[in-house]
């Protein structure tokens, strides 16, 4: 009897540990992106440096999550919701790790900039970054509360990020044509915009996994994207099992 409860206790501890690692990873990437935003908005070189340094911590956490998830799968034979959660953690950790990479890539690019970003672009970038960070935060909350509806809403809301990306890309291209001497600056900006957009994409990957984890069903493979549905975002009801 005691032995059996002991095993259950260990299993639950390990599951708790896995959740804790995922939260920690989410918190770290959120912080990294926050630092990147500070680097953009306040021209804070120190923040950019710090953000780039955190990359290795995120990588280490991904490794831990993967190891623990595989261990749980191999030794504990989890079932149903637990199984879905543990399986989902592996790609979710992967997505967070990619986000961390993009964030530190932006940070590195910022510290290599030869001239400060002009004010209008700075305001626009921080706006887009805030949107991406907000989605990341909401998806981490949805993961913590196992909230499929919230995850679905974020999945659909990423098109705002895509639209923002398109608008800013168009603006940068126009500036380059008009003022060829700013091409270097705008190419750097384009990379940053693109990286932010990729972070947004990974948010939707996590959203898909959260919906799967909670409901057991997958979201449709294609997501409303960019300008397709500008006027009224079609919102499918979240699939329920």
């Amino acid at each position, binding site marked *: 009897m005691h032995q059996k409860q002991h095993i259950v*206790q260990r299993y639950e501890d390990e599951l708790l540990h896995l959740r804790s690692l995922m*939260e920690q990873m989410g*918190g770290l990437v*959120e912080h990294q992106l926050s630092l990147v935003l500070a680097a953009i908005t306040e021209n804070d070189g120190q923040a950019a440096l710090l953000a780039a340094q955190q990359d290795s911590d995120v990588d280490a956490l991904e490794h831990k999550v993967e190891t623990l998830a595989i261990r749980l799968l191999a030794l504990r034979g989890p079932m149903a919701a637990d199984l879905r959660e543990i399986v989902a953690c592996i790609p979710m950790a992967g997505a967070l790790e990619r986000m961390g990479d993009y964030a530190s890539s932006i940070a590195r690019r910022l510290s290599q900039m030869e001239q400060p970003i002009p004010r209008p672009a700075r305001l*626009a970038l921080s706006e887009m970054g805030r949107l991406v960070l907000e989605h990341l935060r909401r998806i*981490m*909350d949805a993961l913590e509360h196992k909230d499929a509806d919230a995850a679905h*809403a974020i999945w659909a809301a990423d098109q705002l990020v895509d639209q923002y990306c398109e608008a800013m890309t168009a603006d940068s291209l126009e500036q380059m044509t008009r003022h060829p001497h700013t091409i270097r600056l705008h190419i750097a900006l384009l990379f940053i915009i693109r990286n932010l957009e990729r972070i947004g994409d990974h948010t939707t990957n996590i959203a898909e996994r959260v919906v799967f984890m909670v409901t057991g069903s997958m979201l449709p493979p294609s997501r409303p994207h960019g300008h397709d549905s500008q006027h*009224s975002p079609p919102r499918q*009801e979240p699939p329920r099992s």
Partner: protein
Amino acid sequence: MVWHLSRRVHLSEHEPHHRSPDRKPTPNSSTMLADAAPLLVEAIPGMALILGSMGQILACNEDARTHYGKSLGALLRHPNARDTLKTALHAPSATDMALPAACSTTVRLDVPVKCSVHLAMRRVGGASERDSLVLVLLHDRSIMQAVDRMRADFVAHASHELRTPLASLSGFIDLMREEGDTTDPSSRTLYLDIMNQQATRMQRLIDRLLYLSQLELKGHHRPHERLDVDDLFALVLGEVTPRFHDSNRTLTVDHEENLALLADRDEMVQLLLNLIENAIRYGTKPDHPLHVRLHARQATPAEGPSPATPGVLIMVEDNGPGIAAHHIPRLTERFYRITDQPEGSTGGEQGTGLGLAIVRQILERHGGQIRFTSTPGQGTACLVWLPTAPAPQGHR
């Protein structure tokens, strides 16, 4: 309270303990603590919670829940909070009587509303690290942080945005000085008009920047007042009617019956005024009558941020020239101005670029949303979603 606590501890002596079955049945301090934790935390005046060794929330008092609610997760997974938790868990206590050292940190969150929280943690009980509990006290430092940032933001934005009108103003002053008495009266009137316009613009810019900063300071508190759409529209109408005396402009107002919002009255009036102001400013085409429609209805579940929350949809529509699709995502950005507007459409007056930023800031505080739809050549619609006020008891 004392009685409750002792009863609780008493119970745990007799019940087989599910938390740690492999331990001796006699209660030790940590199991007693784990059981009494929710009651103890609730009794603490101020925001407090208890975390398990993995950082999971075991108990959280009403104060912390109402103040931070959904932000608690984000606060606690922040690396600063995680590091401090780790330090607190490892903090040794010199003797059985001495308490482990307290650790503290400050966590800043940027979204959705900027906030800054001071966390103080201390390990309580627990024979091993795994059984340890950590008591966390939270202190909100957002206002202090917001005041600092407000000052910095204000200086940065004001110094930049005031430069252009100021340059124009001093240019005309120089011009009039040089010309002295030789300026003919009509030019003089023209100069003074422009100077007046620039001064008004600077005034408006400062007003709006200050208003925006004040909104940011209030950003943490969701309004709880009930506001009838009927009353709101009556107030707005009173304010904007003078703007529609021109025979070329009409305003129609209609709404469904019995709509009520959970919203601050003054801010809602400001929000709708800004939207209507924009409709007039950017919707007016020469030789084309402008129709503005203010409309409210119950929102469908798909229109809100989450299908579970009932909401009201308020729309401000105009039949102006519309907005090109690539501007739409960026409309609420601070100082974003549409630069390719047809000449003369704005009546020669440049906006502050803050009207919609204010709208968005107001909506953020209310948990609302805004969306724009526009067909170039046909008009623009601003759709504002706001949460419905719960029905008052014994009324309607």
